[in-house]
């Protein structure tokens, strides 16, 4: 009884959380004419109008490509550099390690809003406005500290004996890192990568501030600018949102199982 009650509550919560998304997907397939009619849970007719408009009428491929480039580069750099840094922090013994970690995490928590302006000035100075690096660098500033913090925790959970076993087996530091540490760190690396990717994929404020024209707009900026002076094309906005959401959500759902399994089950115990 008790367990069932809790399961029910959990199920309800999940449904509640998922409901807006469900609505968005359905609405994106609904003709504009019926969009603001009585809402119904099960749609009566699905049309592809909005999607056609999105890729036919507007050039929605460009923002998608921009987003992919920026988010991809940010992810690779953040996990790559941050991973090395985190491994060093996790394995090195030095005084003041705890404050350094605290500091690093605090940095990733600073309100993004508050450094839009100085970053704008800095990027203008460096002639990086409206370029890919002009977005990737600011994103790294925010994503890398979180990555480092997450991975330090993860690397610490890896039993050092596994690396020591590698060393005793005759493998050098690099080989041990490559053959022992990396395969075992995959859940941690994947989690960091996904979080970073999603952060950069969805980031809005920097993207709006540091891009100057449609040739560099990312998806969230592009969607925002759909709104005309007098008319808001809701159907197209929703369709664009779905296009921006579904692939990422799919990746997460597929990767999730292994991530959750890896991060929570202490699977590392030999």
């Amino acid at each position, binding site marked *: 009884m008790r367990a069932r009650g809790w399961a029910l509550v959990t199920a309800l919560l999940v449904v509640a959380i998922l409901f807006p998304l469900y609505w968005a997907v359905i609405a994106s397939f609904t003709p504009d004419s019926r969009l603001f009619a009585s809402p119904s849970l099960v749609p009566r007719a699905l049309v592809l109008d909005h999607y056609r408009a999105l890729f036919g009428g507007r050039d929605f491929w460009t923002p998608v490509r921009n987003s992919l480039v920026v988010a991809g580069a940010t992810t690779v750099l953040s996990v790559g550099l941050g991973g090395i840094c985190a491994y060093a922090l996790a394995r090195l013994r030095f005084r003041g390690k705890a404050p350094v970690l605290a500091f690093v995490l605090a940095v990733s928590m600073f309100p993004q809003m508050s450094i839009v302006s100085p970053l704008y000035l800095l990027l203008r100075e460096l002639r990086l406005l409206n370029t890919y690096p002009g977005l990737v660098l600011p994103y790294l500033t925010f994503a890398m500290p979180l990555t480092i913090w997450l991975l330090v925790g993860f690397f610490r959970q890896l*039993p050092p004996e*596994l690396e020591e076993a590698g*060393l005793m*087996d005759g493998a*050098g530091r690099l080989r041990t890192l490559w053959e*022992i540490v990396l395969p075992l760190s995959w859940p941690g690396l994947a989690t960091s990568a996904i979080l970073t990717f999603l952060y950069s994929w969805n980031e809005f404020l920097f993207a709006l501030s540091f891009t100057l024209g449609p040739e560099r707009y990312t998806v969230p900026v592009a969607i925002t600018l759909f709104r005309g002076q007098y008319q808001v094309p809701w159907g197209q906005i929703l369709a664009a949102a779905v296009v921006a959401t579904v692939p990422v959500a799919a990746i997460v759902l597929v990767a999730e199982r292994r991530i959750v399994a890896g991060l929570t089950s202490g699977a590392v115990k030999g």
Partner: protein
Amino acid sequence: MAAIALKRVSKVYPTGQTAVRDLTLEIVNGELLVLLGPSGSGKSTVLRLIAGLETPTSGQVLIDGRDVTLVPPPRRDLAMVFQSYALYPHKSVRENLAFGLRVRGVDAARVDARVRETATALDIEALLERRPAQLSGGQRQRVALGRAIVREPKAFLFDEPLSNLDPTLRAGTRTELALLHRRLATTMVYVTHDQEEAMTLGTRVAVMRAGAIEQVAPALEVFRRPANTFVARFIGSPAMNLWACTCARVGDGRHLVSPAFSIDLTGIDVAVPDGAGVYVGVRPHDIDIVPNGEGNGAGGVEIVEPLGPVTVVHLRVGGLGDDFVRVVVPADSRIEVGDRVTFRVRPDRLHVFDARTGQRVIDQHGR
């Protein structure tokens, strides 16, 4: 095959904690040396210093006479069996065994042959394609052993390899390790906190306390002639009885006198001056329960612990405070809690230690 030597090695951690202090130890080619001590005695640190996983703060580590103090672990060619086994969880048993060979660039056919050979010897052929997570504790232990053996290293280092096994498995595995050592005749350094394991396995036993070696000697020697009160108390089960006594002249003879009893030393060669304070040690096996009037002392039975073949009796003796007198009696003696019994110490089985230094002072006791 290797002789290993530590020369005045110290290890102080950055926290200021001293794990090993000025330790010198020679491990002979082909012997199985056991490092025995309570937790925190630095025995594992010594093993890690030999392995190269720790670098000494001062002193030298030598393998076959060569100074390897600064040589990293991969180039020392030693194999280690970890307490947690530390099997690579993402590799199959076969890959776990093969890794050390592959890393050394051994060709594939030879790797395969060695892995098969080792697996056969350890009876783990059927497990080769499994992952460590799919193995039982005993099987993991075998794989860890196999990973060490397969490489034919210069020497083996064991870090409490049996401590994660069930007692039943432990005895069997201990026997296998003894056979393995006989078969390979390779130098082995074995860390444990279990004195029985140390006694039964070790060619020699080094008893450690607080980062220093208290005694290194063949197992039976450590049992029969413990160098000091620490070793005396640590080796042997049930633990040795130790009493503070004075050596006194009573009538004609000399006696060891304590508040609880008096032992006549007539006919026994004890090089202790009269009046000196000593600790007298007697193993529970070397005390007999005797009829009234024939003993050195008497006490009330507080605890009776049947071990099967023999029974351990704990006697409360006036003047000893909370310390019991432990006596081993045959399992068929009908001694019960509450009985009052007389006991007699076999005078030729005494261990006498200086009360101040704790060091052994007399050397009779032949067995």
